[in-house]
Protein backbone atom coordinates (compact mmCIF):
# COMPACT_ATOMS: atom_id res chain seq x y z
CA UNK A 1 0.00 0.00 0.00
CA UNK A 2 1.29 3.40 -0.79
CA UNK A 3 0.12 6.98 -0.50
CA UNK A 4 0.66 9.23 -3.47
CA UNK A 5 1.00 12.84 -2.40
CA UNK A 6 0.86 14.20 -5.96
CA UNK A 7 -2.03 16.58 -6.46
CA UNK A 8 -2.86 18.07 -9.79
CA UNK A 9 -4.57 21.18 -8.46
CA UNK A 10 -3.90 23.15 -5.38
CA UNK A 11 -6.90 23.83 -3.19
CA UNK A 12 -8.42 23.14 0.20
CA UNK A 13 -9.50 19.57 -0.54
CA UNK A 14 -6.94 16.80 -0.40
CA UNK A 15 -7.32 13.31 -1.79
CA UNK A 16 -5.05 10.50 -0.71
CA UNK A 17 -4.97 7.51 -3.04
CA UNK A 18 -3.82 4.06 -1.99
CA UNK A 19 -2.63 1.68 -4.70
CA UNK A 20 -2.70 -2.05 -4.08
CA UNK A 21 0.63 -2.64 -5.90
CA UNK A 22 4.01 -1.69 -4.53
CA UNK A 23 5.67 1.26 -6.29
CA UNK A 24 2.56 1.75 -8.44
CA UNK A 25 4.04 -0.64 -10.97
CA UNK A 26 1.52 -2.61 -13.05
CA UNK A 27 1.61 -4.86 -16.08
CA UNK A 28 -0.88 -5.02 -18.95
CA UNK A 29 -3.84 -7.14 -17.91
CA UNK A 30 -3.25 -6.55 -14.19
CA UNK A 31 -6.14 -5.70 -11.90
CA UNK A 32 -5.83 -2.10 -10.73
CA UNK A 33 -7.54 -1.58 -7.37
CA UNK A 34 -7.57 1.87 -5.85
CA UNK A 35 -8.84 3.23 -2.53
CA UNK A 36 -8.99 6.92 -1.73
CA UNK A 37 -9.75 9.24 1.17
CA UNK A 38 -11.04 12.79 0.78
CA UNK A 39 -10.10 15.41 3.33
CA UNK A 40 -10.61 19.13 3.72
CA UNK A 41 -14.07 19.39 2.14
CA UNK A 42 -15.90 20.40 5.28
CA UNK A 43 -18.50 23.07 4.63
CA UNK A 44 -18.58 22.44 0.87
CA UNK A 45 -21.24 20.21 -0.63
CA UNK A 46 -20.03 17.73 -3.23
CA UNK A 47 -22.51 17.38 -6.07
CA UNK A 48 -20.85 14.79 -8.34
CA UNK A 49 -17.78 12.55 -8.12
CA UNK A 50 -15.95 11.13 -11.12
CA UNK A 51 -13.47 8.25 -10.99
CA UNK A 52 -11.34 7.62 -14.02
CA UNK A 53 -8.30 5.66 -15.16
CA UNK A 54 -6.75 7.40 -18.14
CA UNK A 55 -3.60 7.61 -20.20
CA UNK A 56 -2.40 10.87 -21.62
CA UNK A 57 0.52 12.07 -23.70
CA UNK A 58 2.97 14.66 -22.55
CA UNK A 59 5.87 16.35 -24.27
CA UNK A 60 6.20 18.59 -27.26
CA UNK A 61 2.92 17.70 -28.96
CA UNK A 62 -0.64 18.59 -28.06
CA UNK A 63 -1.92 16.48 -25.19
CA UNK A 64 -3.98 13.44 -26.17
CA UNK A 65 -6.16 11.61 -23.69
CA UNK A 66 -7.52 8.08 -23.65
CA UNK A 67 -10.08 7.01 -21.07
CA UNK A 68 -9.87 3.38 -20.02
CA UNK A 69 -12.25 3.50 -17.07
CA UNK A 70 -14.82 6.16 -16.21
CA UNK A 71 -17.42 6.23 -13.47
CA UNK A 72 -19.67 9.18 -12.56
CA UNK A 73 -21.46 9.17 -9.26
CA UNK A 74 -24.48 11.46 -9.14
CA UNK A 75 -26.80 9.74 -6.66
CA UNK A 76 -26.99 11.94 -3.56
CA UNK A 77 -26.51 9.09 -1.09
CA UNK A 78 -23.65 7.54 -3.03
CA UNK A 79 -21.98 10.94 -3.39
CA UNK A 80 -22.23 11.54 0.34
CA UNK A 81 -20.47 8.23 0.97
CA UNK A 82 -17.90 8.48 -1.85
CA UNK A 83 -17.20 12.08 -0.86
CA UNK A 84 -15.50 10.79 2.29
CA UNK A 85 -13.73 7.74 0.92
CA UNK A 86 -14.18 5.31 -1.92
CA UNK A 87 -12.69 2.58 -4.02
CA UNK A 88 -12.80 1.39 -7.60
CA UNK A 89 -11.03 -1.16 -9.72
CA UNK A 90 -10.51 -2.15 -13.32
CA UNK A 91 -8.43 -4.49 -15.44
CA UNK A 92 -5.68 -2.68 -17.33
CA UNK A 93 -5.59 -3.05 -21.13
CA UNK A 94 -2.79 -4.47 -23.26
CA UNK A 95 -1.65 -0.99 -24.33
CA UNK A 96 -0.44 1.70 -24.37
CA UNK A 97 2.45 1.11 -22.02
CA UNK A 98 3.96 3.93 -19.96
CA UNK A 99 6.72 5.51 -22.00
CA UNK A 100 9.31 8.15 -21.22
CA UNK A 101 10.36 9.37 -24.65
CA UNK A 102 12.25 12.48 -25.62
CA UNK A 103 9.40 14.45 -27.17
CA UNK A 104 6.54 11.98 -26.59
CA UNK A 105 5.67 10.56 -23.19
CA UNK A 106 2.76 8.29 -22.32
CA UNK A 107 1.54 8.36 -18.74
CA UNK A 108 -1.16 6.45 -16.93
CA UNK A 109 -3.00 7.96 -13.99
CA UNK A 110 -5.96 7.61 -11.68
CA UNK A 111 -8.10 10.71 -11.37
CA UNK A 112 -10.68 11.51 -8.75
CA UNK A 113 -12.64 14.64 -9.61
CA UNK A 114 -15.02 16.37 -7.24
CA UNK A 115 -17.71 18.77 -8.48
CA UNK A 116 -18.91 21.12 -5.77
CA UNK A 117 -22.33 22.71 -5.49
CA UNK A 118 -20.65 26.11 -5.87
CA UNK A 119 -19.75 25.21 -9.47
CA UNK A 120 -16.02 24.70 -9.08
CA UNK A 121 -14.34 21.35 -9.40
CA UNK A 122 -11.22 19.76 -7.96
CA UNK A 123 -9.21 16.99 -9.53
CA UNK A 124 -6.58 14.83 -7.94
CA UNK A 125 -4.28 12.90 -10.27
CA UNK A 126 -2.08 9.97 -9.27
CA UNK A 127 0.36 8.58 -11.82
CA UNK A 128 1.23 4.89 -12.01
CA UNK A 129 3.27 2.80 -14.43
CA UNK A 130 2.09 0.20 -16.90
CA UNK A 131 4.83 -2.05 -18.29
CA UNK A 132 8.57 -1.59 -17.87
CA UNK A 133 9.77 0.28 -20.93
CA UNK A 134 13.12 1.97 -20.23
CA UNK A 135 13.40 5.70 -20.97
CA UNK A 136 14.32 6.60 -24.54
CA UNK A 137 17.75 7.98 -25.32
CA UNK A 138 19.29 9.49 -28.41
CA UNK A 139 21.13 6.89 -30.51
CA UNK A 140 24.92 7.19 -30.50
CA UNK A 141 26.42 9.57 -33.04
CA UNK A 142 27.71 8.09 -36.25
CA UNK A 143 24.86 5.65 -36.73
Amino acid at each position, binding site marked *: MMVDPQERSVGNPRIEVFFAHQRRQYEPGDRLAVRYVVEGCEGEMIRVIEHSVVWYTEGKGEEDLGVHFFERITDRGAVASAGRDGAFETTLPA*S*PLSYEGLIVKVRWCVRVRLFFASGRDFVSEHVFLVGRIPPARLPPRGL
Partner: protein
Amino acid sequence: MRLPRLYAKKRGHRRTVSREWGVLGDGIFHAILLAAGMFFGGLLVSGVVAPEWRINHEFVRTTCTIQAKGLARITRPDPPAGVVAHWEPRLLVRYSTDGVVRESWARITAHDTAVERDTAIGRLSGWKLGAEVPGWFDPGVPDDVVLQRGYSFWLWLLVLLLPGALVLIGGSGLVRRLRAWGKSEERLAASAGLSELLDPLAQPVHAAPGHPGVPQWDDLVNSPGTILRYRLPVESPEYWTVFGFGFFALLWNLVVVVLAVGPGLDLLGGRFEWLVVALLVPFLIVGVGGVVLFVRSLLLATAIGTTQVEISAHPLLPGGRYDVLLAQGGTGVLRSLELLLELEEQATFRQGTDTRSEQITVYRQPVAACGDVRPAPTSRFETRTVVEIPADAMHSFTSAHNAVRWRLVVRGIPDRWPAFSRAFPVVVLPPANGAAASRATHDAAAERETP
Protein backbone atom coordinates in the same frame (compact mmCIF):
# COMPACT_ATOMS: atom_id res chain seq x y z
CA MET B 1 -15.90 35.55 -7.49
CA ARG B 2 -12.60 34.31 -8.89
CA LEU B 3 -11.92 34.55 -12.61
CA PRO B 4 -10.31 31.52 -14.27
CA ARG B 5 -6.51 31.77 -14.60
CA LEU B 6 -5.13 32.51 -18.06
CA TYR B 7 -2.49 29.80 -17.74
CA ALA B 8 -2.89 26.40 -16.19
CA LYS B 9 -0.36 23.82 -15.07
CA LYS B 10 2.83 23.40 -17.06
CA ARG B 11 2.76 20.21 -19.07
CA GLY B 12 5.92 18.80 -20.64
CA HIS B 13 7.70 21.41 -22.72
CA ARG B 14 5.04 24.06 -22.54
CA ARG B 15 2.58 25.75 -20.29
CA THR B 16 -0.98 24.88 -21.23
CA VAL B 17 -3.52 27.67 -21.46
CA SER B 18 -6.48 27.83 -19.14
CA ARG B 19 -9.21 25.47 -20.27
CA GLU B 20 -12.02 27.81 -19.18
CA TRP B 21 -10.66 30.77 -21.15
CA GLY B 22 -9.98 28.51 -24.10
CA VAL B 23 -13.55 27.22 -24.09
CA LEU B 24 -14.91 30.76 -23.77
CA GLY B 25 -12.73 32.10 -26.60
CA ASP B 26 -13.55 29.17 -28.84
CA GLY B 27 -17.26 29.57 -28.07
CA ILE B 28 -17.18 33.29 -28.93
CA PHE B 29 -15.30 32.57 -32.16
CA HIS B 30 -17.86 29.99 -33.28
CA ALA B 31 -20.75 32.22 -32.20
CA ILE B 32 -19.35 34.99 -34.42
CA LEU B 33 -19.08 32.55 -37.34
CA LEU B 34 -22.66 31.41 -36.77
CA ALA B 35 -23.95 35.00 -36.53
CA ALA B 36 -22.05 36.02 -39.69
CA GLY B 37 -23.44 33.01 -41.55
CA MET B 38 -26.98 33.78 -40.46
CA PHE B 39 -26.59 37.48 -41.31
CA PHE B 40 -25.24 36.92 -44.82
CA GLY B 41 -27.62 34.02 -45.34
CA GLY B 42 -30.52 36.27 -44.33
CA LEU B 43 -29.36 38.98 -46.73
CA LEU B 44 -29.11 36.54 -49.62
CA VAL B 45 -32.42 34.88 -48.82
CA SER B 46 -34.33 38.16 -48.48
CA GLY B 47 -32.61 39.89 -51.40
CA VAL B 48 -32.27 37.08 -53.91
CA VAL B 49 -33.90 33.82 -53.02
CA ALA B 50 -37.26 35.08 -51.71
CA PRO B 51 -38.00 37.44 -54.68
CA GLU B 52 -37.08 34.69 -57.14
CA TRP B 53 -39.25 32.17 -55.30
CA ARG B 54 -42.20 34.64 -55.34
CA ILE B 55 -41.87 35.15 -59.11
CA ASN B 56 -41.98 31.40 -59.67
CA HIS B 57 -44.82 30.68 -57.24
CA GLU B 58 -46.94 33.80 -56.66
CA PHE B 59 -46.73 35.93 -59.83
CA VAL B 60 -49.75 35.61 -62.15
CA ARG B 61 -49.35 34.62 -65.77
CA THR B 62 -50.56 36.96 -68.49
CA THR B 63 -49.91 37.70 -72.17
CA CYS B 64 -47.81 40.74 -72.98
CA THR B 65 -47.45 42.66 -76.23
CA ILE B 66 -44.06 44.28 -76.69
CA GLN B 67 -44.50 48.00 -77.36
CA ALA B 68 -40.96 49.35 -77.10
CA LYS B 69 -37.40 48.54 -76.08
CA GLY B 70 -35.31 50.54 -73.68
CA LEU B 71 -32.39 50.59 -71.26
CA ALA B 72 -32.52 51.42 -67.57
CA ARG B 73 -29.49 53.40 -66.47
CA ILE B 74 -28.11 52.23 -63.12
CA THR B 75 -25.56 54.52 -61.50
CA ARG B 76 -23.50 53.98 -58.40
CA PRO B 77 -20.98 56.26 -56.72
CA ASP B 78 -17.36 55.50 -57.56
CA PRO B 79 -15.13 57.96 -55.68
CA PRO B 80 -13.06 59.85 -56.59
CA ALA B 81 -14.09 59.66 -60.25
CA GLY B 82 -17.77 60.35 -59.53
CA VAL B 83 -20.28 57.76 -60.67
CA VAL B 84 -20.19 54.64 -62.79
CA ALA B 85 -23.14 53.87 -65.08
CA HIS B 86 -24.35 50.40 -66.07
CA TRP B 87 -27.40 49.38 -68.07
CA GLU B 88 -30.26 46.95 -67.75
CA PRO B 89 -32.40 45.88 -70.73
CA ARG B 90 -36.12 46.66 -70.36
CA LEU B 91 -39.21 46.08 -72.57
CA LEU B 92 -42.35 48.21 -72.55
CA VAL B 93 -45.21 45.69 -72.57
CA ARG B 94 -49.00 45.98 -72.67
CA TYR B 95 -51.06 43.41 -70.76
CA SER B 96 -54.33 43.18 -68.90
CA THR B 97 -55.01 42.34 -65.29
CA ASP B 98 -58.58 41.82 -64.11
CA GLY B 99 -59.92 43.56 -67.22
CA VAL B 100 -57.61 46.58 -66.80
CA VAL B 101 -55.13 47.19 -69.62
CA ARG B 102 -51.73 48.23 -68.30
CA GLU B 103 -48.39 49.27 -69.72
CA SER B 104 -45.14 48.77 -67.84
CA TRP B 105 -41.40 48.56 -68.41
CA ALA B 106 -40.84 44.87 -67.74
CA ARG B 107 -37.70 43.14 -66.59
CA ILE B 108 -36.65 40.28 -68.82
CA THR B 109 -35.56 37.98 -65.97
CA ALA B 110 -35.92 38.08 -62.20
CA HIS B 111 -32.35 39.27 -61.81
CA ASP B 112 -31.34 41.45 -64.70
CA THR B 113 -27.78 42.36 -63.95
CA ALA B 114 -26.42 45.75 -64.90
CA VAL B 115 -23.96 45.39 -67.79
CA GLU B 116 -22.16 47.49 -70.37
CA ARG B 117 -24.43 49.45 -72.72
CA ASP B 118 -23.54 47.39 -75.84
CA THR B 119 -24.20 44.13 -73.99
CA ALA B 120 -27.57 45.39 -72.75
CA ILE B 121 -28.56 46.40 -76.32
CA GLY B 122 -27.49 42.96 -77.53
CA ARG B 123 -29.83 41.31 -75.03
CA LEU B 124 -32.76 43.26 -76.47
CA SER B 125 -32.11 42.17 -80.05
CA GLY B 126 -33.90 38.84 -79.65
CA TRP B 127 -37.22 40.52 -78.79
CA LYS B 128 -39.49 41.75 -81.62
CA LEU B 129 -41.74 44.76 -81.36
CA GLY B 130 -45.44 43.83 -81.53
CA ALA B 131 -44.79 40.22 -80.58
CA GLU B 132 -47.01 38.55 -77.99
CA VAL B 133 -45.03 36.83 -75.25
CA PRO B 134 -45.93 35.26 -71.91
CA GLY B 135 -45.31 37.42 -68.84
CA TRP B 136 -45.87 37.23 -65.08
CA PHE B 137 -46.98 40.13 -62.87
CA ASP B 138 -47.01 40.64 -59.12
CA PRO B 139 -50.65 40.44 -57.90
CA GLY B 140 -49.78 42.92 -55.15
CA VAL B 141 -47.97 45.38 -57.47
CA PRO B 142 -49.44 44.74 -60.98
CA ASP B 143 -46.92 47.07 -62.66
CA ASP B 144 -44.07 44.72 -61.69
CA VAL B 145 -43.73 42.35 -64.67
CA VAL B 146 -41.12 39.81 -65.74
CA LEU B 147 -40.94 38.01 -69.07
CA GLN B 148 -38.89 34.99 -68.04
CA ARG B 149 -39.10 32.78 -64.97
CA GLY B 150 -36.71 30.23 -63.55
CA TYR B 151 -34.05 29.94 -60.88
CA SER B 152 -30.54 31.32 -60.78
CA PHE B 153 -28.85 28.16 -59.58
CA TRP B 154 -25.48 29.83 -59.01
CA LEU B 155 -27.18 32.22 -56.57
CA TRP B 156 -28.80 29.34 -54.70
CA LEU B 157 -25.42 27.63 -54.64
CA LEU B 158 -23.90 30.82 -53.23
CA VAL B 159 -26.57 30.90 -50.53
CA LEU B 160 -25.92 27.28 -49.66
CA LEU B 161 -22.15 27.31 -49.83
CA LEU B 162 -20.91 30.51 -48.21
CA PRO B 163 -23.39 31.27 -45.41
CA GLY B 164 -24.18 27.55 -45.16
CA ALA B 165 -20.53 26.74 -44.46
CA LEU B 166 -20.33 29.52 -41.87
CA VAL B 167 -23.53 28.32 -40.17
CA LEU B 168 -22.32 24.70 -40.22
CA ILE B 169 -18.85 25.40 -38.82
CA GLY B 170 -20.05 28.01 -36.32
CA GLY B 171 -23.10 26.02 -35.24
CA SER B 172 -21.31 22.71 -34.80
CA GLY B 173 -18.46 24.42 -32.94
CA LEU B 174 -20.88 26.23 -30.67
CA VAL B 175 -22.85 23.05 -29.94
CA ARG B 176 -19.59 21.26 -29.23
CA ARG B 177 -18.53 23.97 -26.81
CA LEU B 178 -21.94 24.15 -25.11
CA ARG B 179 -21.91 20.39 -24.80
CA ALA B 180 -18.46 20.52 -23.21
CA TRP B 181 -19.37 23.28 -20.78
CA GLY B 182 -19.08 22.10 -17.19
CA LYS B 183 -17.91 18.62 -18.18
CA SER B 184 -14.58 17.09 -17.32
CA GLU B 185 -12.19 16.13 -20.09
CA GLU B 186 -12.42 12.50 -18.98
CA ARG B 187 -16.20 12.51 -19.36
CA LEU B 188 -15.94 14.12 -22.79
CA ALA B 189 -13.27 11.66 -23.91
CA ALA B 190 -15.31 8.74 -22.60
CA SER B 191 -18.27 9.76 -24.81
CA ALA B 192 -16.39 10.80 -27.93
CA GLY B 193 -18.94 9.56 -30.48
CA LEU B 194 -20.96 12.78 -30.82
CA SER B 195 -17.85 14.95 -30.52
CA GLU B 196 -16.42 13.31 -33.62
CA LEU B 197 -19.65 14.04 -35.50
CA LEU B 198 -19.56 17.68 -34.38
CA ASP B 199 -15.91 18.04 -35.29
CA PRO B 200 -15.59 16.61 -38.79
CA LEU B 201 -12.14 18.22 -39.23
CA ALA B 202 -10.67 16.24 -36.36
CA GLN B 203 -8.57 13.33 -37.54
CA PRO B 204 -9.89 10.09 -36.08
CA VAL B 205 -7.27 7.66 -34.79
CA HIS B 206 -7.93 4.05 -35.71
CA ALA B 207 -6.38 1.77 -33.14
CA ALA B 208 -5.81 -1.93 -33.63
CA PRO B 209 -8.57 -4.08 -32.06
CA GLY B 210 -7.62 -5.08 -28.51
CA HIS B 211 -4.60 -2.76 -28.52
CA PRO B 212 -5.58 0.82 -27.64
CA GLY B 213 -3.06 3.33 -28.94
CA VAL B 214 -1.45 0.86 -31.36
CA PRO B 215 -2.00 1.78 -35.04
CA GLN B 216 -3.79 -0.60 -37.36
CA TRP B 217 -1.50 -2.57 -39.66
CA ASP B 218 -3.96 -3.70 -42.36
CA ASP B 219 -2.22 -1.56 -44.99
CA LEU B 220 1.15 -3.13 -44.18
CA VAL B 221 0.15 -6.75 -44.81
CA ASN B 222 -2.00 -6.51 -47.93
CA SER B 223 0.88 -7.04 -50.35
CA PRO B 224 2.52 -10.50 -50.51
CA GLY B 225 6.28 -10.68 -51.02
CA THR B 226 8.08 -12.57 -53.75
CA ILE B 227 10.24 -14.56 -51.34
CA LEU B 228 9.15 -13.68 -47.80
CA ARG B 229 5.58 -13.37 -46.59
CA TYR B 230 4.93 -9.62 -46.83
CA ARG B 231 6.26 -6.81 -48.99
CA LEU B 232 6.32 -3.66 -46.90
CA PRO B 233 4.98 -0.43 -48.42
CA VAL B 234 7.50 2.38 -48.86
CA GLU B 235 7.03 5.69 -47.11
CA SER B 236 9.40 7.94 -48.96
CA PRO B 237 9.49 11.72 -48.66
CA GLU B 238 11.08 12.01 -52.11
CA TYR B 239 7.81 10.95 -53.79
CA TRP B 240 5.97 13.70 -51.92
CA THR B 241 8.69 16.14 -53.04
CA VAL B 242 8.10 15.13 -56.66
CA PHE B 243 4.35 15.52 -56.23
CA GLY B 244 4.77 18.89 -54.48
CA PHE B 245 7.07 20.33 -57.15
CA GLY B 246 4.82 18.98 -59.92
CA PHE B 247 1.68 20.41 -58.37
CA PHE B 248 3.32 23.78 -57.81
CA ALA B 249 4.71 23.92 -61.35
CA LEU B 250 1.32 23.03 -62.83
CA LEU B 251 -0.64 25.58 -60.80
CA TRP B 252 1.88 28.38 -61.23
CA ASN B 253 2.18 27.91 -64.97
CA LEU B 254 -1.60 27.80 -65.33
CA VAL B 255 -1.72 31.21 -63.67
CA VAL B 256 1.05 32.44 -65.99
CA VAL B 257 -0.89 31.22 -69.04
CA VAL B 258 -4.05 33.01 -67.85
CA LEU B 259 -2.07 36.22 -67.25
CA ALA B 260 -0.33 35.92 -70.62
CA VAL B 261 -3.50 35.56 -72.72
CA GLY B 262 -4.27 39.31 -72.84
CA PRO B 263 -0.74 40.52 -73.65
CA GLY B 264 -0.40 37.67 -76.18
CA LEU B 265 -3.54 38.75 -78.04
CA ASP B 266 -2.31 42.35 -77.96
CA LEU B 267 1.01 41.20 -79.41
CA LEU B 268 -0.77 39.34 -82.21
CA GLY B 269 -2.78 42.48 -82.89
CA GLY B 270 0.43 44.43 -83.30
CA ARG B 271 0.40 46.20 -79.90
CA PHE B 272 3.29 45.77 -77.52
CA GLU B 273 2.60 46.78 -73.89
CA TRP B 274 6.15 46.68 -72.53
CA LEU B 275 5.03 47.41 -68.96
CA VAL B 276 2.68 44.40 -68.89
CA VAL B 277 5.32 42.14 -70.44
CA ALA B 278 7.90 43.35 -67.88
CA LEU B 279 5.48 42.49 -65.08
CA LEU B 280 4.96 39.04 -66.60
CA VAL B 281 8.66 38.17 -66.79
CA PRO B 282 9.18 37.40 -63.05
CA PHE B 283 6.12 35.13 -63.09
CA LEU B 284 7.53 33.37 -66.15
CA ILE B 285 10.93 32.89 -64.48
CA VAL B 286 9.31 31.32 -61.39
CA GLY B 287 7.21 29.08 -63.68
CA VAL B 288 10.27 27.84 -65.59
CA GLY B 289 12.11 27.34 -62.28
CA GLY B 290 9.19 25.24 -60.98
CA VAL B 291 9.33 23.00 -64.06
CA VAL B 292 13.12 22.59 -63.73
CA LEU B 293 12.80 21.62 -60.05
CA PHE B 294 10.02 19.15 -60.86
CA VAL B 295 12.02 17.48 -63.66
CA ARG B 296 15.14 17.32 -61.44
CA SER B 297 13.27 15.76 -58.49
CA LEU B 298 11.54 13.32 -60.88
CA LEU B 299 14.92 12.27 -62.28
CA LEU B 300 16.34 11.82 -58.77
CA ALA B 301 13.36 9.72 -57.69
CA THR B 302 13.30 7.47 -60.74
CA ALA B 303 16.98 7.18 -61.68
CA ILE B 304 17.97 5.13 -58.64
CA GLY B 305 15.49 2.33 -59.11
CA THR B 306 12.95 0.84 -56.76
CA THR B 307 13.80 -0.48 -53.32
CA GLN B 308 11.81 -3.34 -51.85
CA VAL B 309 11.79 -4.77 -48.35
CA GLU B 310 10.08 -8.05 -47.52
CA ILE B 311 9.58 -9.51 -44.06
CA SER B 312 8.69 -12.97 -42.79
CA ALA B 313 5.94 -11.93 -40.32
CA HIS B 314 3.94 -8.93 -39.26
CA PRO B 315 3.08 -7.34 -36.79
CA LEU B 316 6.34 -7.69 -34.87
CA LEU B 317 6.86 -8.48 -31.19
CA PRO B 318 9.54 -7.29 -28.77
CA GLY B 319 12.35 -9.82 -28.62
CA GLY B 320 11.24 -11.36 -31.93
CA ARG B 321 13.62 -12.19 -34.80
CA TYR B 322 12.37 -11.81 -38.36
CA ASP B 323 13.83 -12.62 -41.77
CA VAL B 324 14.14 -9.57 -44.00
CA LEU B 325 14.86 -9.36 -47.71
CA LEU B 326 16.31 -6.15 -49.10
CA ALA B 327 16.07 -5.78 -52.88
CA GLN B 328 17.36 -2.88 -54.97
CA GLY B 329 16.48 -2.41 -58.64
CA GLY B 330 17.88 -0.03 -61.25
CA THR B 331 21.03 0.03 -63.30
CA GLY B 332 23.40 2.38 -61.52
CA VAL B 333 26.20 1.49 -59.09
CA LEU B 334 25.68 2.17 -55.38
CA ARG B 335 28.76 2.78 -53.27
CA SER B 336 26.86 1.61 -50.19
CA LEU B 337 23.43 0.30 -49.28
CA GLU B 338 22.44 -0.20 -45.67
CA LEU B 339 19.35 -1.31 -43.79
CA LEU B 340 18.58 0.12 -40.35
CA LEU B 341 15.91 -0.43 -37.73
CA GLU B 342 14.68 2.88 -36.33
CA LEU B 343 12.25 4.14 -33.72
CA GLU B 344 10.95 7.63 -34.32
CA GLU B 345 8.88 9.88 -32.08
CA GLN B 346 6.58 12.38 -33.75
CA ALA B 347 4.81 15.25 -32.00
CA THR B 348 2.32 17.60 -33.63
CA PHE B 349 1.64 20.93 -31.99
CA ARG B 350 0.19 24.33 -32.71
CA GLN B 351 2.42 27.34 -32.82
CA GLY B 352 0.26 30.42 -33.24
CA THR B 353 -2.00 29.63 -36.17
CA ASP B 354 0.40 27.06 -37.65
CA THR B 355 0.32 23.33 -37.02
CA ARG B 356 3.84 21.98 -36.78
CA SER B 357 5.24 18.51 -36.55
CA GLU B 358 8.57 17.44 -35.08
CA GLN B 359 10.29 14.08 -35.38
CA ILE B 360 13.23 12.65 -33.51
CA THR B 361 14.88 9.25 -33.89
CA VAL B 362 15.41 7.63 -30.48
CA TYR B 363 16.66 4.22 -31.57
CA ARG B 364 18.77 3.21 -34.57
CA GLN B 365 20.26 -0.22 -35.09
CA PRO B 366 22.18 -1.30 -38.24
CA VAL B 367 20.67 -4.47 -39.68
CA ALA B 368 22.68 -4.97 -42.87
CA ALA B 369 25.28 -3.04 -44.85
CA CYS B 370 26.54 -3.74 -48.38
CA GLY B 371 29.20 -2.02 -50.48
CA ASP B 372 29.64 -1.72 -54.26
CA VAL B 373 26.08 -2.75 -55.07
CA ARG B 374 25.53 -3.35 -58.81
CA PRO B 375 21.94 -4.20 -59.69
CA ALA B 376 21.47 -5.33 -63.29
CA PRO B 377 18.54 -4.47 -65.58
CA THR B 378 17.43 -8.11 -65.62
CA SER B 379 18.17 -9.05 -62.00
CA ARG B 380 17.82 -6.86 -58.96
CA PHE B 381 20.32 -6.85 -56.12
CA GLU B 382 19.09 -8.95 -53.17
CA THR B 383 20.35 -9.65 -49.68
CA ARG B 384 18.74 -11.52 -46.77
CA THR B 385 19.26 -10.74 -43.15
CA VAL B 386 17.57 -11.00 -39.76
CA VAL B 387 16.16 -8.12 -37.79
CA GLU B 388 15.70 -8.41 -34.04
CA ILE B 389 13.31 -6.20 -32.11
CA PRO B 390 14.73 -5.26 -28.68
CA ALA B 391 13.04 -7.19 -25.88
CA ASP B 392 12.28 -4.02 -23.92
CA ALA B 393 11.12 -2.04 -26.96
CA MET B 394 8.28 0.45 -26.77
CA HIS B 395 5.42 -0.72 -28.96
CA SER B 396 4.15 1.32 -31.91
CA PHE B 397 1.89 4.05 -30.62
CA THR B 398 -0.36 6.59 -32.26
CA SER B 399 -2.81 9.17 -30.97
CA ALA B 400 -4.28 12.33 -32.47
CA HIS B 401 -1.12 14.44 -32.05
CA ASN B 402 1.63 12.03 -31.00
CA ALA B 403 3.18 8.88 -32.40
CA VAL B 404 5.99 6.41 -31.74
CA ARG B 405 6.79 4.64 -34.98
CA TRP B 406 9.04 1.72 -35.87
CA ARG B 407 10.42 1.46 -39.37
CA LEU B 408 13.06 -0.19 -41.48
CA VAL B 409 15.12 2.43 -43.28
CA VAL B 410 17.19 1.85 -46.41
CA ARG B 411 19.99 4.37 -46.95
CA GLY B 412 21.97 4.32 -50.16
CA ILE B 413 24.80 6.32 -51.71
CA PRO B 414 24.73 6.02 -55.51
CA ASP B 415 27.86 6.56 -57.52
CA ARG B 416 26.59 9.55 -59.49
CA TRP B 417 23.47 10.71 -57.68
CA PRO B 418 22.79 12.24 -54.26
CA ALA B 419 22.27 9.90 -51.29
CA PHE B 420 18.74 8.62 -50.74
CA SER B 421 16.73 7.28 -47.83
CA ARG B 422 13.56 5.18 -48.00
CA ALA B 423 11.48 4.16 -45.01
CA PHE B 424 9.33 1.05 -44.61
CA PRO B 425 7.01 1.34 -41.55
CA VAL B 426 6.32 -1.69 -39.38
CA VAL B 427 4.10 -2.14 -36.33
CA VAL B 428 5.51 -3.51 -33.08
CA LEU B 429 2.96 -4.81 -30.57
CA PRO B 430 3.31 -4.85 -26.78
CA PRO B 431 4.68 -8.14 -25.39
CA ALA B 432 2.36 -11.00 -26.37
CA ASN B 433 1.93 -12.51 -22.92
CA GLY B 434 1.64 -9.15 -21.22
CA ALA B 435 2.67 -9.17 -17.62
CA ALA B 436 4.75 -12.34 -17.65
CA ALA B 437 6.84 -11.30 -20.65
CA SER B 438 7.32 -7.82 -19.33
CA ARG B 439 8.41 -9.09 -15.89
CA ALA B 440 10.73 -11.67 -17.46
CA THR B 441 12.35 -8.95 -19.57
CA HIS B 442 12.78 -6.76 -16.53
CA ASP B 443 14.23 -9.60 -14.44
CA ALA B 444 16.65 -10.52 -17.23
CA ALA B 445 17.77 -6.91 -17.46
CA ALA B 446 18.23 -6.77 -13.69
CA GLU B 447 20.33 -9.92 -13.81
CA ARG B 448 22.54 -8.46 -16.51
CA GLU B 449 23.11 -5.35 -14.42
CA THR B 450 24.08 -7.38 -11.35
CA PRO B 451 27.90 -7.58 -11.09
